């Protein structure tokens, strides 16, 4: 159960974005997905939900590949991009187009609008949304099908402090209900408040897959310090690093 990534490799042209990556995301806890820019986090997430076809290897969700799911949104809620609605379409219409594919009732669209605090913005065109409101709309889409698994790429980006607190509570509550919650973020101190388990990748390969406690308090350091130490050799782009990244 949960998410299983099995020897996943993905090549774009000549570049391997992900190379022989294997890990599992367990239900009932929040798993953070960390890595420097270009480490392959988004590629891994896109491969799990079938947007990218793996070059080799596979990803399973509760035992099945995403593309086999008959009602994918009832199994998996995904947020990959805060700017995922058409600029000229109202937020409520964006949700309706998604709900229609699964035949979710209109009531459910209203519920997720309420849940994400978008009541006053539901009839506003998505092009007028701030980044934070776009995130809320993306989270509303992810929650539409009341899914057992949530996959969220940088869900905290652009949210105001109230929104950050809200999503932290939401993710903890979802995990406490036995759901699988998998999220990436660069905001490590924020992430440390909500994750139970951490998967770290760099240059498309697995660096660490461990409980938060093992990486931090047991080793007497913060998540940030642990992360910097772990990814020291895997960072491709670093400020002030004159001779570039790859050696």
């Amino acid at each position, binding site marked *: 159960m949960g998410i299983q990534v099995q020897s996943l490799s993905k090549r774009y042209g000549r570049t391997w974005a992900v190379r022989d990556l294997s890990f599992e995301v367990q239900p009932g806890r929040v798993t953070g997905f960390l890595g420097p820019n270009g480490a392959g986090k988004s590629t891994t997430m896109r491969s799990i939900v079938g947007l990218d076809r793996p070059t080799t290897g596979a990803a399973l969700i509760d035992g099945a590949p995403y593309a086999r799911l008959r009602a*994918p949104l009832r199994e998996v809620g995904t947020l990959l991009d805060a700017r995922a609605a058409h600029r000229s379409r109202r937020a409520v219409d964006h949700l309706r187009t998604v709900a229609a594919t699964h035949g979710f009732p209109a009531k459910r669209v209203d519920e997720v609008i309420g849940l994400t605090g978008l009541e006053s913005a539901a009839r506003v065109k998505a092009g007028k949304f701030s980044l934070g409101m776009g995130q809320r709309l993306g989270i509303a889409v992810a929650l539409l099908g009341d899914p057992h698994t949530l996959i969220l790429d940088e869900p905290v980006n652009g949210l105001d402090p109230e929104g950050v607190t809200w999503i932290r509570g939401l993710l903890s509550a979802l995990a406490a209900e036995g759901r699988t919650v998998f999220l990436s973020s660069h905001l490590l101190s924020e992430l440390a408040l909500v994750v139970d388990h951490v998967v770290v990748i760099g240059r498309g390969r697995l660096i660490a897959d461990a409980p938060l406690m093992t990486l931090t308090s047991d080793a007497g350091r913060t998540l940030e310090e642990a992360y910097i130490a772990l990814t020291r050799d895997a960072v491709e782009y670093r400020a002030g690093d004159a001779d570039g990244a790859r050696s």
Partner: protein
Amino acid sequence: MSAAATGAATSTATGASSVSVARVVRAEWTKFRTLPSNLITVAITFVTIVGLAGVLLAASDDGGTALAPVDLLAGVSWAQFLPAVLGIVAICSEWAAGTSRVTFLAVPTRWPVLAGKVAVVGVVTFVAGAAAAAGALAMGAAAGVDVGADPALAIRLVSGTGLYLGTIAVFALGVGAIVRNLVGSILTAVGFLWIAPFAAVMIPVPEVHELAGYLPTSAGALLLTPDNPAVELTPWGGYAVLLAWAAAALAGALLTLRVRDV
């Protein structure tokens, strides 16, 4: 399991729902009608065809009696660019606007999305084209054009305008799904639909001229002309050629959707 955190008040909130082709068609219809630009494009298509018929009728000295029913559809060749744009925008806007991920997360088998867009764009442009042709012929009949002299032709002109524009829209949709980039798709479609027929005329080789008759718009437009024995293709034969172009574009679109990452 309690569903408190996601606000699903009852287990029936998302109950027995699963993806079906009919539901994807409905989703695509919702997408189409919730973008104002689509409705405007359909309206302009209609107005161009009916309006040009009106202009022709008003401009003819004898009130239109010298015009043939076919002449009343002169606006189709001007309006035909718009259904093509509708078809291209229906698919390319998914990538331009960033909605492609949401769309294919909901329908990971992918092909129903294409089927839904074909159904919506095809039916809308068919109805708009047929309604506009009916309007143009009705205006002509009221002004004295002998539309009733050949009822079979009148029926073919009305249904043919719908079929011609609808099939061009579907062809363009297929091109858009293969090319994905909005500008690239429009240029490709313009090349096939308008530039190629003109370019072929410039080449002084008889075989090229003959083959040019099988280009999508050249062949399809025969449906909107009287049967001409001098042309190798019959009106419906010409339409069948256009249909084959659309089918080929859709086959390429299905393959592209299947093998390419979203």
